[in-house]
């Protein structure tokens, strides 16, 4: 056979053919974990300019570069103080095992930052492990209890998620143990669907009243966040501000999930990059930038990503998948178990199966043993410390004494798409496609 004559179709590459054939045999959409796999414009397409003759840098390790951030300055009596602008995103007990939750809690606490609950409510262990715990208020209200609201340090009203804006949750039966079933008041072993809309409010006017209710219940103490998947981000940000949010969490389309239909993961929402810019524009237009804090998530991996999100105007970022990777998600260990799932380290997205080869997204006690919570906490701490150092290093190189002093003017774009989306010039030009 003449190999040169064998050409793969760009329209039908092998993974597309495989999906068509899977659909033909199963008759149901594919549900999986993790985030979008398609390429999208990201923070990789931006670079910092660094100091030069016109600007001077700060001395690394000697001159101070602060990283603290306060969230909830608008209305909350007790705003939360984070030592670093990097938080751990909402991931439910149920999707994650108890060891993973504990590791994230202790690791984040060691760095002075927050973790977040998820669908299914708050566990005692999680409250104990996390010095600062944000409590998610989700459409399903599984496990939602007023005592937990009162125990939380902040409340996050989830209107949507980057992996599935407009979609509800899913926890497949294989992950529903007695404890998870009991927390959610549902029978064991069923495929749990979570509603996509809140049961008692729709639209911005209702949301305003909902926020008022949550404040009344908690005596106006706690910061209230609103989390939305990135779609019509400018409008959503404005409406969230109008509804009275203390902070807004914007989750880009790359954002991870424990289990969602692939068509949602890959085909709905906009990338994190343009979403940050749109959210900041909305806040500035309302004169609310830094008054209502902006937390950004979806595909955050490095200190560079953090610094770039902050430079575009975010107050903090939030991390899901990468924090699991710090706990060995997709690490080349227990390879035979990845193979048994039909995948390999580096390509795993099988959180939905409950058979996580490294013991993170599982409720199976044998698999869970593969994640030592203490060691895990140390790894999360190390990872967050590295991100913080990287972010500070970049900020100092741009001459900034606080990471929040980074600004869009410190960056240029390497591609036209990123230039247009982030509204920074294409490198070596003054050109912002679509804007100048």
């Amino acid at each position, binding site marked *: 056979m003449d190999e040169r004559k064998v050409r793969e179709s760009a329209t039908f590459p092998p993974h597309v053919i495989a999906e068509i054939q899977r659909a033909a045999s199963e008759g149901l959409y594919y549900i999986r974990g993790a985030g979008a796999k398609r390429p999208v414009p990201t923070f990789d397409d931006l670079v910092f300019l660094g100091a030069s003759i016109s600007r001077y840098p700060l001395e690394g390790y000697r001159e101070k570069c602060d990283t603290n951030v306060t969230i909830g300055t608008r209305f909350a009596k007790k705003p939360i103080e984070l030592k670093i602008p990097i938080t751990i995103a909402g991931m439910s007990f149920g999707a994650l095992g108890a060891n993973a939750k504990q590791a994230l809690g202790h690791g984040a606490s060691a760095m002075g930052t927050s973790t977040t609950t998820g669908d299914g409510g708050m566990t005692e262990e999680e409250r104990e492990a996390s010095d600062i715990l944000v409590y998610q208020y989700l459409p399903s*209200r599984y496990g939602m209890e*007023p005592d937990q609201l009162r125990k939380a340090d902040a409340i996050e009203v989830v209107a949507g998620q980057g992996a599935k804006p407009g979609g509800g949750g899913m926890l497949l039966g294989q992950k529903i143990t007695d404890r998870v079933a009991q927390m959610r008041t*549902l029978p064991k072993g069923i495929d749990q*669907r979570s509603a996509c809309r809140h*049961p008692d*409010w729709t639209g911005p006017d*209702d949301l305003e009243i*909902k926020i008022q*209710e949550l404040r*009344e219940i908690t005596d106006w103490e706690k910061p209230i966040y609103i989390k939305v998947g990135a779609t019509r981000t400018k409008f959503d940000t404005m409406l969230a501000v109008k509804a009275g949010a203390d902070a807004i969490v914007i989750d880009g389309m790359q954002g991870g999930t424990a289990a969602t239909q692939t068509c949602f993961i890959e085909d709905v929402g906009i990338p994190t990059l343009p979403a940050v810019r749109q959210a900041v524009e909305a806040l500035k237009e309302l004169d609310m930038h830094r008054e209502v804090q902006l937390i950004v998530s979806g595909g955050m991996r490095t200190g560079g990503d953090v610094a770039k999100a902050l430079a575009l105007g975010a107050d903090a970022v939030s991390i899901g998948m990468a924090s699991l990777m710090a706990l060995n998600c997709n690490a080349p260990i227990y390879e035979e178990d990845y193979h048994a799932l039909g995948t390999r380290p580096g390509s795993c997205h099988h959180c939905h199966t409950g058979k996580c080869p490294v013991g993170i997204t599982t409720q199976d006690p044998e698999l869970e043993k593969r994640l030592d919570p203490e060691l895990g906490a140390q790894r999360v701490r190390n990872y967050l410390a590295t991100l913080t150092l990287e972010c500070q290093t970049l900020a100092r190189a741009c001459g900034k004494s606080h990471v929040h002093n980074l600004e869009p003017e410190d960056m240029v774009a390497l591609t036209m798409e990123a230039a247009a989306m982030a509204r920074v010039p294409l490198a070596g030009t003054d050109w912002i496609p679509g804007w100048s």
Partner: protein
Amino acid sequence: MHTLDLDRMAVRDVNQRLHSDAAGTDTDQRYEILNPMGRHAIAVGLDHPFDVTVRGHAGYYCGSMNKEATVTIDGNAGVGVAENIMSGTVHVTGYASQSAAATGHGGLVVIGGDASARCGISMKGVDIVVGGSVGHMSAFMAQSGHMVVCGDAGESFGDSIYEAQLFVRGSVESLGADCIEKEMGPEHVETVRGLLERAGIDADPAEFRRYGSARQLYNFKIGNIGYY
């Protein structure tokens, strides 16, 4: 009886008073709230066995997330009355708007008149007794607890229901996906009798019909594609 007048106090001050009094030693545990005038979030997040009466119509989320208290709304209630109630009782003497007792985990919610759409949506253990009828999509995704409807039920009653038990005396316009009529045994008649008694509603429990889950949608199956 303590009197809190919303013409003179902000809702915020009324709620804070009710929260802070819970830790106090006053033996008079009865409160009346005057001039609610449709204000939202009145008497929310109570966690003490107070007896609170709201004299007039309340706005959204009155008595929400209640624990232990008895809250009576002497009038009509807006959206999400007794939302996520944990225990205690919330009693609306008049009518209730949408999503009454939504996601309630426990306790008793009584609506004297009709309740609008989505009554008992995602209920998780609460008992609901409605003197009149309930609107469409009531008991949607109802997980646990009981709903007793003395009048009729609107369209798609009990859609995607889990383990809650529903009882209707009148007609059901249509049943939602996976909701079916089930046999009304003597133990169910007793359950309804007990709930009617607790609600103070005079009706013959033998006249009710029972509805619940066919449990066909509990796991994703290709054969059920039309329901998803």
